[in-house]
């Protein structure tokens, strides 16, 4: 199978710092590849190499079959780049920004104006067309940035942390735009440090840390990979929490963790919930709720990288701190690779 985006063993060093340490990733045509990783993991360096702005020290990167280092011009014909670093000209109006890029791509003056009007309309910027980009809100600027990228109908789009710093409404607007583009056949590489963003948009995810890929798969596969499902049991009478906890401990061999009026337990054995329910029933403990929950991507991320993603909200972060003792092997591997 040929991939639209494919890197092998990418290495990039900046002096002493190794930004990429043998990164491999692939994206299929017409899908979203989410590149998930903490700050400094190497996401932006990877995007810059794939956009022909940086040359890798080792390894190869291909876009639609073209080697990025050898055929940068061909690659530039296929890609659109938006994100943290590539940016619109703040002193030009939204309309002028789009017309400029259209002219550079060979549009005639009138075709460039038509294209600008069309894209501005599509991204809800018609009213702001004549205003300098400097006066735009964060969300408007990202939309303009995206509009500028799409002038030449790129078949591959790089979105480098497209929603960092945006309010929730602008975020979901941008997500909708990305979904629309993918439906139209565009291949998207999206870097993000937000779990929910990767979960919402990606067909495939590659988790990177310290410049290398530490896990790949669909969001579902990644969640399944950390085989820690959580069993949550809530007795109807909170006074019975302790008795119930003992019974569960007898069955499973580990003491459940008490969180409010709930018992929580990491389980691998899928027969356990049924057994627990029967046992509690026999003991006359009425169960109000019993649920088996898959881990959130955030938990997956934690167990893979061994460190907390800084951008998650603190409430969910505490739940995860519940099981640090069970942190799986990959985390240790990641630790080692950082030293």
């Amino acid at each position: 199978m040929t991939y639209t985006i494919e890197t092998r063993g990418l290495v990039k060093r900046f002096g002493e710092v190794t930004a990429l340490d043998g990164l491999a990733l692939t994206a299929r045509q017409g899908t979203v590849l989410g590149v998930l990783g903490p700050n400094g993991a190497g996401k932006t360096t990877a995007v810059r190499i794939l956009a022909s702005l940086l040359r890798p020290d080792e390894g190869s990167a291909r876009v639609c079959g073209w080697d990025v280092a050898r055929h940068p011009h061909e690659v530039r014909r296929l890609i659109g780049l938006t994100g943290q670093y590539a940016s619109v000209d703040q002193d030009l109006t939204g309309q002028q920004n789009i017309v400029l890029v259209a002219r550079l791509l060979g549009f005639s003056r009138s075709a460039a104006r038509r294209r600008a009007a069309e894209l501005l309309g599509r991204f809800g910027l018609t009213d702001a067309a004549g205003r300098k980009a400097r006066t735009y809100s964060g969300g408007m600027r990202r939309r303009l940035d995206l509009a500028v990228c799409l002038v030449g109908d790129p078949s591959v789009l790089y979105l480098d942390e497209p929603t960092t710093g945006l309010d929730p409404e602008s975020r979901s607007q941008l997500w909708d735009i990305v979904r629309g583009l993918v439906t139209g056949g565009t291949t998207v590489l999206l870097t993000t440090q937000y779990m929910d963003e990767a979960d919402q948009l990606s067909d495939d995810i590659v988790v990177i840390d310290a410049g290398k890929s530490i896990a790949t798969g669909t969001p579902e596969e990644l969640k399944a990979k950390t085989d820690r499902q959580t069993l949550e049991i809530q007795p109807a009478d909170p006074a019975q929490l302790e008795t119930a906890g003992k019974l569960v401990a007898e069955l499973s061999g580990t003491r459940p963790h008490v969180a409010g009026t709930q018992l929580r337990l990491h389980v691998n054995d899928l027969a356990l919930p049924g057994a627990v329910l029967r046992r509690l029933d026999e003991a006359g403990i009425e169960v109000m709720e019993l649920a088996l929950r898959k881990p959130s991507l955030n938990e997956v991320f934690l167990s893979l990288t061994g460190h907390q993603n800084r951008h998650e909200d603190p409430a969910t972060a505490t739940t995860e701190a519940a099981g640090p003792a069970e942190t799986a092997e990959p985390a240790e591997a990641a630790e080692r690779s950082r030293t």
Partner: protein
Amino acid sequence: MSASATAPVRHRLGLVTTARHCFSLTGRNLLHLKANPGEIVGFVFVQPLLVIALLVYVFGGAISGDTATYLQYALPGLIVQNSVMSVLTTGAGINQDMSNGVFDRLRSLPIARIAPLIGHMLGHMTRVTAGLLMLLVAGLLQGFEIRTGLLSALSALLLALVFGIGLAWVSIAIGVSARSATTVHMFSGVLSLPLTFVSNVFVETDTMPGWLQAWAKINPISHEATALRALMSGGPLGTSVWWTLGWAATLTAVFAPLALRAYRQRVV
């Protein structure tokens, strides 16, 4: 296969396409003027008029005895000084583009690699031209006489522009290599002082100490000012035009490759 061992395949764009990219980006540079009308007013009106008023009316009497004589001596030099100061700001705009991500956007497009630099340069040279013409017009209004002929006076302006292109490469090299806009401004400032003041732009050089005269004699600005004076007011042209063109060629030959190399290697 190691990627670093394989050089990129150079994609030669036609001359027409390259020129089109350069002009589109020149247009973008000039749109900045429209976005900041203050810049037009400052560059094209206030600066020339203020410079003439200050130098000619404040210093004129003291240096040459009367203001009219000094205006006739100084205006060609002021045109030179104005173009030098203005050309040296080219690098600042380029540096700004590099730090705010505009260059990354441009470099990710399938356009001629050199177009972003040339766009800035041509945009700046357009401003320089407007400034020169304004200075000349302002000077004429105050009583400056072109004693040679219109063609000769226009070739004087053309000479100033050609030298300006040579000097623009110096500024571009600084702009591409510097880490911050502040560095660019500092370098340009430091560079412009010995160039314009230690020359015959404002005064004859024979009262300067010997070591300073030595520099003033080879200083391209002195030659350029001499050439412009001769082309506008008459008088001996000597080798000044050749010196000026030679300097323009030398600066281009040295600094254009430096600028392009730094531009290609720049990784932010």
